[in-house]
């Protein structure tokens, strides 16, 4: 499928939804409806699909909304099949961190990076993707910290680095292992910490042994001297911070990648102290909070494990229902279950999987197979275009009250500043209305604070965070079990305790092996395509497309100057980009930050160039994240194509 819409540099806008819409028959048009009719239809659809229902919750909505959404799935619909799009970005971080430390949050705070000695930015172009976090990094650099950037592209983050390690896409594990081996061989690891606070060191030592600097250099493309320098700087530092973003997680083995990085922090004792820690940066404003609130298939609110009988009992007696003692389906598994018919109804709140999933063509086909798709959003997104019922919601961050949780675990108040348009209603109100229609008369919350207080009563880590205290401290980081005290800004100080009881469970090394990208390059598809973000745009562009950014230039396939010359293409020239799954036409941009054989695209302009037609649905078996970062493509010049693509029709 080739998109032939005219390229338009002006802002791309979606108009707010102002009233409910329903569809009378599959394939028919959506028509306006009253709230009563729309809710009744949604409730009927869910009722008919009991036992085959899934909930997509929203990483951009408030904690309170995520709490109520997961409660709807578990209490009203009796399922743990609830997930949100953090699957497409950071689930591997949560999975990796909780496997090692028992908790899925980044271990340090932004302020600490200003007071550290070595900063490693791995697979993270924070200068563009997390600009205000990067200001803290810059303060750190100005205070004397040395920064290293590990990224296939020489990004604008790398421009600030003391050293740039430009590894080949998907070779993070060999690089991490080689760093680990070098640290061990040079006797630079923190022996006392490793012996006291970790487990599995001997196995780890054997695992990394084959990864000599030379071996790793061959596989990763990074010079041995550069690997050695990073290893020594990191291990010798008094304090060090290891940060990563989607470059690590959006792989078919994202969780393994995360484990490989955490190994380095364990080896050197760079965790659990002020200024030393590991920090995944979250892609969406409330990815952290959505998981914390239990809007994921394996955890109850407060990130408490569903398999823990005591935890379940607490929730069962509080909610008055039985909770299934097993993990639910991840978003990816829910999509698979649509195909097999095991999932027949979906309640999708504020997500746009039709465009954000890898292999978007397949995602749309599967959505179309559902008996009942209810979409609750502020816009008529591509996903909403497939819906049987569309419910107009409020914009969480400026039209509702509540809280969100950022990448440093800081829970902060979100406040209503403007009134929503038309008949749009708050997410929590709508969910409660549906619950009441499905037989739960008692579902009423006076306000978001009431929801929050219910969550506090169930989640020890949030108990100390009253709305008043959140206001007073400009947000509080979890854990906050006490109504008076505040905890240190970093997690896992326990790992430094000498008393084994206080120390608790040792942190295990991850025994993870190199597994190259699924989509191999070959003669037919010789170029490695990787994806990422630009500074002024965001995800599928639904939010960011509306303002007049002077920086916006639309979608391009970016090549290095050598490749542009090799294929005989110039800036602005339109080429056909083909992977094993699909093909799109996009204009060329030339970027010297890339290397021969490496191309770059974003997914900010899916209506112009649908990059996810190219990406592969190869999922991390542990976290279900797709391998957005590595596809194999080829590029061909297309003859006789006008700049607006008109001849392609």
């Amino acid at each position, binding site marked *: 499928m080739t998109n032939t819409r005219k390229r338009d540099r002006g802002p791309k*806008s979606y108009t707010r939804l102002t009233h409910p819409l329903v569809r009378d028959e599959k394939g028919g048009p959506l028509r306006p409806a009253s709230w009563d009719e729309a809710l009744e239809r949604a409730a009927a659809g869910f009722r008919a699909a009991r036992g085959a229902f899934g909930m997509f919750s929203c990483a951009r909505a408030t904690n309170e909304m995520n709490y109520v959404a997961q409660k709807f799935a578990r209490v009203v619909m009796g399922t743990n099949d609830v997930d949100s799009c953090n699957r497409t970005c950071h689930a591997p971080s949560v999975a990796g961190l909780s496997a090692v430390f028992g908790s899925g949050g980044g271990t340090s705070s932004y302020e600490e990076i200003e007071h550290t000695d070595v900063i490693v930015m791995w697979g993270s172009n924070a200068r563009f993707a997390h600009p205000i976090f990067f200001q803290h990094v*810059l303060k750190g650099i100005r205070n004397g910290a040395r920064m290293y950037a590990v990224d296939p592209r020489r990004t604008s983050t790398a421009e600030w680095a003391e050293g740039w390690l430009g590894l080949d896409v998907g070779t993070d594990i060999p690089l991490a292992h080689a760093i680990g081996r070098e640290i061990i061989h040079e006797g630079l690891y923190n022996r006392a910490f490793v012996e006291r606070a970790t487990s599995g060191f001997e196995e780890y030592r054997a695992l990394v042994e084959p990864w000599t600097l030379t071996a790793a250099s061959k596989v990763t493309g990074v010079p041995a001297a550069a690997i050695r320098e990073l290893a020594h700087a990191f291990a010798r530092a008094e304090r060090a911070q290891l940060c990563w973003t989607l470059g690590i997680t959006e792989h078919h083995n994202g969780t393994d990648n995360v484990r490989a990085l955490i190994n380095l922090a364990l080896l050197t004792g760079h965790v659990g102290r002020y200024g030393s820690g590991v920090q995944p940066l979250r892609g969406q*404003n409330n990815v952290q909070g959505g998981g914390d609130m239990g809007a994921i298939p394996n955890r109850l609110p407060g990130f408490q494990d569903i398999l823990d009988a005591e935890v379940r009992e607490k929730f069962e007696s509080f909610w008055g229902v039985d909770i299934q003692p097993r993990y639910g389906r991840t978003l990816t598994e829910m999509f698979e279950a649509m195909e097999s018919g095991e999932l027949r109804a979906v309640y999708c709140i504020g997500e746009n999987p039709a465009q954000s999933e890898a292999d978007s063509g397949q995602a749309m086909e599967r959505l179309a197979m559902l008996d009942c798709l209810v979409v609750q959003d502020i816009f008529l997104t591509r996903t909403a275009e497939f819906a049987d019922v569309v419910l107009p919601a409020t914009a969480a961050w*400026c039209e509702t009250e509540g809280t*969100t949780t950022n990448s440093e675990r800081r829970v902060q108040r979100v406040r209503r*500043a403007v009134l929503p348009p038309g008949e749009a209603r708050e997410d929590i109100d709508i969910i409660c209305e549906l619950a009441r229609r499905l037989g739960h008369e008692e579902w009423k919350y006076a306000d978001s604070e009431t929801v929050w207080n219910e969550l506090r009563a169930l989640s020890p880590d949030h108990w100390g965070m009253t709305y008043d205290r959140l206001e007073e401290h400009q947000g509080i980081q979890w854990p906050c079990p006490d109504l008076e005290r505040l905890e240190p800004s970093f997690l896992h100080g326990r790992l*430094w305790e000498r008393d084994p009881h206080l120390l608790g469970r040792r942190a295990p090394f991850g025994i993870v092996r190199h597994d190259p990208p699924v989509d191999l390059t070959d003669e037919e598809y010789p170029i490695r395509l990787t994806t990422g973000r630009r500074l002024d745009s965001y995800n599928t562009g639904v939010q960011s497309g509306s303002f007049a950014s002077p920086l916006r230039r639309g979608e391009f396939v970016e090549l290095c100057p050598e490749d542009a010359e090799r294929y005989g293409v110039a800036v602005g020239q339109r080429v056909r980009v083909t992977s094993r799954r699909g093909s799109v036409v996009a204009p060329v941009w030339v970027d010297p930050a890339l290397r021969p054989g490496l191309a770059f695209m974003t997914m900010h302009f899916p209506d112009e160039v649908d990059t996810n037609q190219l990406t592969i649905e190869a999922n991390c078996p542990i976290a279900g994240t797709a391998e957005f970062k590595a596809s194999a493509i080829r590029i061909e010049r297309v003859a006789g194509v006008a700049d607006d693509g008109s001849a392609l029709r």
Partner: protein
Amino acid sequence: MTTVPLAPPRRLLEFTLDDTPVRVPEGATILDACRAAGKDVPTLCHGDTLTPKNACRVCVVEVEGARTLAPACSRLAEPGMVVRTDTERTRHSRKVVLELLASSVDLSTTPRAAEWIKGYGAEPDRFGPEARRLGEEPRVDNDLYVRDYDKCILCYKCVDACGDQWQNSFAISVTGRGFDARIAVEHDGPLTESACVYCGNCIEVCPTGALSFKREFDMRADGSWDEEAQTETTTVCAYCGVGCNLTLHVQDNEIVKVTSPHDNPVTHGNLCIKGRFGFQHVQNRV
């Protein structure tokens, strides 16, 4: 073992401010002490998130025993010092500073300037009408910012915010010297050909409105800008996971400007282009 660096409690020091003993933490400036005591000292080039530049000298106070007046915004409080904020000398000095500024610069959008000019009895016309105005049209070369150098007092705050104190983009600098000194981007070209990334952090610190958001500029031009009618609500950015606090300035149910609290631990008053300008999508209400 706890490794939290518990900052040592800052010691208090005592000095005399306008004949009253005051106590402030070590490291506080005279301005901090004045503000804590509820004294109104005018400031222009001082920025609460920036290192003092001592460029405008409108904040001067008299320190007993010192030959010259001291800028309150940068002079640290010392134990036992005797400071007077409202003497004939300070009033005269501030009056002259205001006269010089107001005669060469358009202070019409500088908050409180008119009140100070009146209060200190300044007569800007003393030097002839609009003595050294640049007489330049505002520069509108993109949809987000306007630069109106007729209003610039050369306080350098924007240069510091864009440069090594916060943004590190170095899109703006001072060019020329003396009377010809001015703030400009590379080769004095349009913003769109500079290193500017449209974070708006220069506008956040500009004390005069020489740098402003285009929306505010347009609304002022057509007379619809009404600060009295605006509400300010602090919430959290809807984009990436950093979690910046945004203060939404709302007039008639429209977001007209976005700022961030300067004492916020996440932002220190700074934002990126998405947080600063990415709100339009919620008000595409047909």
